[in-house]
């Protein structure tokens, strides 16, 4: 994994910005590049609706694989201990074998966002703006709007709940129950079960 031509960009999707992300990065040391993305720009750009997610990008800037829910918990960052021990070898295989790796998705399909999903992003950004300005009423209003516009985005729900920890557990359970048969994370190709 320590191939110098392989870089891990860990992007914190955190509306609390540097302050919330710093303890994690300090613990992790400098084995990867840690970026702070309080507006969820990367999730928006890559159509990611949950964390943690992973995108494999090759030397030419081509997306080779997108996984939602790559590992269940983000602990022991310094050693890259993924929640699933079987994910890291897949990445290593790609680093070694490039496009010949069986883990590369050669038929990658990226769907266009609906206009509502697309509109959720500027609504969310307004929430972040008003939260930063100390106006929690407006922040909650626009975060709720983002959730309504893109109910599939766990990022919006979980960000919002981060501000009301007491309610988070109940909200989480309620939301998971409404999912029914929809998996919380999309199944990871090449692995036998999803990491709920």
């Amino acid at each position, binding site marked *: 994994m320590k191939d110098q031509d392989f870089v891990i960009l860990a*992007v914190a999707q955190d509306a609390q910005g540097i302050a919330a992300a710093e303890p*994690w990065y300090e613990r992790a040391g400098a084995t990867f590049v840690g970026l702070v993305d309080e507006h969820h720009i990367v999730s928006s750009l890559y159509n990611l609706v949950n964390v943690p997610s992973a995108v494999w990008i090759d*030397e030419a800037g081509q997306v080779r694989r997108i996984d939602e829910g790559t590992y269940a918990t983000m602990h022991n960052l310094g050693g890259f201990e993924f929640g699933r021990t079987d994910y890291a070898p897949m990445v290593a295989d790609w680093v070694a074998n490039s496009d010949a790796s069986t883990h590369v998705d050669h038929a990658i399909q990226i769907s266009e966002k609906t206009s509502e999903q697309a509109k959720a992003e500027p609504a969310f950004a307004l929430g972040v703006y008003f939260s930063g300005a100390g106006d929690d009423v407006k922040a909650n209003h626009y975060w709720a709007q983002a959730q309504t516009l893109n109910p599939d985005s766990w990022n919006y729900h979980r960000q919002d709940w981060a501000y009301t920890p007491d309610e988070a557990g109940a909200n989480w359970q309620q939301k998971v129950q409404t999912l029914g048969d929809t998996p919380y994370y999309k199944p990871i190709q090449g692995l036998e079960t999803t990491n709920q």
Partner: protein
Amino acid sequence: MKHLSAVLLLLGLAAFPVHAATVLLGGDIVSVEHTLADPTDLWVSVDELTRVNGFELKPEGACLDAICVPVQQDRDSDIFVTRQGKPWFNVTELAARIQQPYVVDSEADVWSFGAVPAQRQSFIRDAVAPDFTLPDWQGNTLSLSDFKGKKVMLLTWASW
């Protein structure tokens, strides 16, 4: 100046530069000192256009990378007007034409814009990784394109 503009508004001479606005785009907060008074649309001075949404007004129209929206600049329209010899541009009208989503908080005059769909085509069609620029935790600014020539795994995570 404020009184004068209020009087002009009363006289029906709307669209006089009176108030400030804030624009949110791609994580940036852009303050605009003067906008034309308009209850539904955001008009900025043409000088400010690039700062506000990245577009540049050229003879052929408002352009950003490969996108060019034709704009007639010798007469007033719903996207371009001249007031007191100064050209003004309707940012929300442009957004509507290129299907760029936006949400406004009218009370605080904060206009939040989403991605320009035409700029997402290479990702949607050809899975070309969209570039982005973000601060690292020490405050240095980095872009995905800085790592071209290397394999990159992008990992999103959060403290929440």
